[in-house]
Each structure stands twice: as structure tokens, then as C-alpha cells.
């Protein structure tokens, strides 16, 4: 090797070590079957927990019962967070809580919380290697309607808890062509017509096709019913989602940009949101 050649300096080598424990969930008590569900960490001296088992994975595993599983896991993570906070230490967190089993205490170098979480996912979870799914030929089959329906149901429930007077506007239908079939919309009032969609990280192409179809329906509804505003409120993954690869993040950013452009061209607006709460606040704002 050329003695004057130095290997590139990777800042990670000099980054401080941060403690964390992987958290494994045992869905059926006493079976020993476990999945990485998240981590409890002490990044930068602050304790916290992060769920890393994706919603889509829970949906695939448990179908209609996935919401219950999510609630269970979130409660378990809250318990770990409370226990870690009580002592600002991860040392004593060695026993199971609510079916969640902590793994070995680790300390790895990280320059950001995202990097720490990504390390944990790579070390302990097969379900975080989403790149493998991208290597398979993606079939542009339609997204499961279940995925969109669940998001729109959550948005509706939250919105109605704040504005019960909006009940009659959710799930209303209208024709897209004269004397045509009635098409159901996520929300339709005299002032705004809106659809809800999901930008599914493992199926970006199919998500894009779905969004396009919804934009078409919105465009037609606005024209026929002479409604002022048309909106597509889309659930998207957070930019700092540790379970996504850089490539997936790029694909999702591109998909969002494309949907926003196509919406603008059709005289509509695309509102990406990362939670159902945000979706609800947006629809309430538009309905005002």
C-alpha cells in the first residue's frame, strides 16, 4: 500500500458512544417467538424509546388486529421510557415488561439519533432490510384498499372528536360524469372535496398510481359539483424514519414531488402528513 495514501476519514469513528438496548416483542406470551419492535436508548444523555416495527409489518402479520398490537407495543414502550426516565439509565432495564423483552445493553457510535437507530435496526432486525424488497420486481398491483381505509378512518375519528358537526361530510359520494355511478370521497362539503391516500414505502409505484386515480376523481368532482377546493391528504413516512434506506427515502421524496406537481396541474392541492392527527387538523382547516 502507498504509505502516503490515507484512508478517507469517516466521522463515525470519532463519534461518541451512546447506550441502547434492543426491545423484542413476544406476541403470544410464553411462546418464545420474538420480533425486534424498537429500542430504548440514552442518546446524548436523554432516555427515550422508538418503535421500529413498521405499521405495514403489523398489518401483514395481524390484519384487523394490528391496531390492538400497536396499542400494546406503544404501552410497553411507554413503560420502558418511564423506567429509563426514573433513573436516567438503561442498566436496570433487563427484565420484560408487557411482553417486551430487552436485549443486551449496547453502546455504539452515532452522530445522530437516526444513525443510532439505523445501527440497531441493521444489527437486530430482518424487517428493517427493506432494500431486499426493492430488489424484487415490484408488481404495480393496486394497493390494498385496507391501507387507505384505515388512514381515512383514523383521520375521520380524530376530526369528529374535535368537530362532530362535520360528520355528514365524511364518506359522501357524488357522480363524476352526468348520470354516472356515484363515487365515494373521503370528505365532501359545499366548500371542499378531499380524498385520503397513503404513500406506502414498500410500494411507491403503486401508491403513485393510486394517488393519480384519486386526483382524477377530485378533479372531476370539483368540475361537476363546482366545488372551490380540491385536496389530496396523503399519509407519508417521516423523513427521519430509521427503517428506510437512503434509496427508499429518495424514492418517496420523488413520489411526493410528483404527486404535488400533478395535483397543482389539475388545480388541486396535495397535503402530505405524517400522522392521522395532522390529517384531521388539515381537513378541519380546509372545511372552515
Amino acid at each position, binding site marked *: 500500500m502507498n504509505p502516503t495514501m490515507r484512508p478517507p476519514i469517516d466521522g463515525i469513528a470519532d463519534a461518541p458512544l451512546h447506550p441502547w438496548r434492543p426491545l423484542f416483542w413476544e406476541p403470544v*406470551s410464553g411462546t418464545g417467538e420474538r420480533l425486534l419492535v424498537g429500542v430504548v436508548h440514552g442518546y446524548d444523555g436523554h432516555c427515550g424509546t422508538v418503535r421500529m416495527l413498521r405499521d405495514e409489518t403489523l398489518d401483514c402479520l395481524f390484519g384487523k388486529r394490528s391496531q390492538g398490537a400497536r396499542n400494546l407495543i406503544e404501552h410497553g414502550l411507554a413503560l420502558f421510557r418511564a423506567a429509563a426516565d426514573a433513573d436516567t439509565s438503561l442498566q436496570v432495564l433487563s427484565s420484560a*415488561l*408487557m411482553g417486551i423483552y430487552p436485549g443486551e445493553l449496547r453502546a455504539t457510535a452515532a452522530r445522530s439519533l437516526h444513525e443510532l437507530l439505523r445501527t440497531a435496526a441493521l444489527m437486530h432486525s430482518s424487517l428493517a432490510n427493506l432494500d431486499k424488497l426493492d430488489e424484487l420486481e415490484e408488481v404495480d398491483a393496486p394497493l390494498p384498499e385496507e391501507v387507505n381505509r384505515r388512514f381515512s378512518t383514523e383521520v375521520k375519528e380524530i376530526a369528529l372528536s374535535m368537530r362532530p358537526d362535520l360528520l355528514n361530510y365524511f364518506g359522501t359520494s357524488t357522480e363524476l360524469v352526468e348520470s354516472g355511478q356515484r363515487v365515494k370521497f373521503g370528505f365532501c362539503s359545499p366548500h371542499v372535496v378531499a380524498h385520503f391516500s397513503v404513500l406506502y414505502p414498500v410500494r411507491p409505484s403503486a401508491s403513485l398510481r393510486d394517488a393519480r386515480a384519486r386526483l382524477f376523481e377530485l378533479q372531476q368532482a370539483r368540475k361537476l359539483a363546482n366545488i372551490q377546493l380540491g385536496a389530496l391528504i396523503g399519509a407519508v413516512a417521516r423523513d427521519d424514519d430509521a427503517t428506510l434506506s437512503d434509496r427508499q427515502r429518495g424514492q418517496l421524496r420523488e413520489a411526493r414531488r410528483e404527486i404535488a406537481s400533478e395535483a397543482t396541474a389539475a388545480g388541486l392541492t396535495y397535503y402530505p402528513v405524517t400522522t392521522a392527527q395532522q390529517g384531521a387538523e388539515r381537513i378541519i382547516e380546509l372545511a372552515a
Partner: protein
Amino acid sequence: MTLKWATVVPGSETAVCIGTTGAIRCVLSIPGESLTGAILKRGAIEHVLAEAFCALLLRGWGLPVPRFFLVQESGSVSFASTDAGYPNLSQRLGVDAFPAGSPQHTQVVELAARLACSFPTAALAATADEAIQNRDRNLQNILWDGSDELWIDHAFALGNGAHLPDANKLCDMAIVTGQANALETTAIAQWTALDRTKPSSAAELLEPVADLSANAAFVTARLSQLGMLLLARFPSPRDLLSHP
């Protein structure tokens, strides 16, 4: 509702190691039904009968308690409560991961107690526990799958828990987590709506196994004064006539 018997599939038993009543996970063979997962409890006959009687009674009152079977084994009778569907995602709310009194224990127990008291059937459970004199409603005896709760482990009800401090633990949890008013009001309302015929119905169903008329009479007697018993579990309101 009828009393049903089942058989444990040989070799399917796995120790669960939770609580003091020696629970064992197993698979049951049920006549006319498919195999199902269950938790089996072997022990003193009075505990088995208390479990069976309370399961019938509490289910009769509308409290979510797992479906159960009795299992005849080598001259003794065991109690088995079945998984509610497959997979059974229920977890016990108990948090014994930390030493009692430690800051971690205090924090996590409060979170778990708050959750327990927020369940839709918590008030009914508190009322039923008072009726059957269940002194052992700790967090380990409450199951939750993220959507629905289940109330389990009644071996120490009906006088079997005389060695335990006299307490209604759900009421205690409500007091500690600041939910006493809500639970008290709803529990009293639940008491007024309880079907007074259910204790004798439960005893009748178990007649082929044992004479549980005394248990039925015990519960019926408590029902007549349950309002006062429940009120006594909660702090009295302070007024001008209260002693300081």
C-alpha cells in the same frame, strides 16, 4: 351457558411461571370443536371451584372473562381458561420487572394502573370484585391485547383470600391514579344493575361437580349491602362536620 369439559393434549403443557397459582400453557381438545390454546390451573379443589363459579357469575354479569372448561385428570378436577382466538396477543398488565419501591417500579406501576382503571369494564370489575370478595385483583390478573381487556384469576375470591389484606385493588388503583371519583360513581351504578339471580344460576350449573349453594348465598348476601361496601373503599368527602 353450559358447563363444558375438555382434555389436555398430552405433551402440550408449558410452564408459564407467572403469579402464585401455577399456571400452565397447554392445548385443549374440546368435543365438537377444534383444538384451542388455554391456560390450565391445577390446585386445591376450592380454588378450582372458585374459578369456575366466578367465571360463570362474572360472565353472566357481562364482565369479559375468558371462556373456561373443566378438565378431569386422575381423580382431580382442573380449571382451564381458553385463548380468545388465535393468535392470542393478550398480555398481563403486571410489571414485576423492578424491585418494589424502586423509582422504576413506581413509575411503571402507575402507568399500568392508570391503564387498568381506564378500561371500559373497570368499574364493573371493581363492583364484581367487591361482590365476590376478590382481594387479589393485582395487575397480573388483568389481560389486555391492545384493544380489549379480560379479567382473570379468581381462585382467591369467595373467602379463599382471607389471608390477604382486605382490599379492593381496583379501587386502590383508581385512588392512586386520581380516577377515584369516576370509578366510584360508575361502580355504584353498576351495582344497582347487577342481576341478583346470577349467583344461584352459577351454582346450579356447577351442581354436577359440587354443591356451591353456600357460595351463591355468600355473594347474594354481599349484594344487598354492596353499595355501602363500595363507598367504604373510597375516601369520604370532607365537609364542615368532618373531624380534622
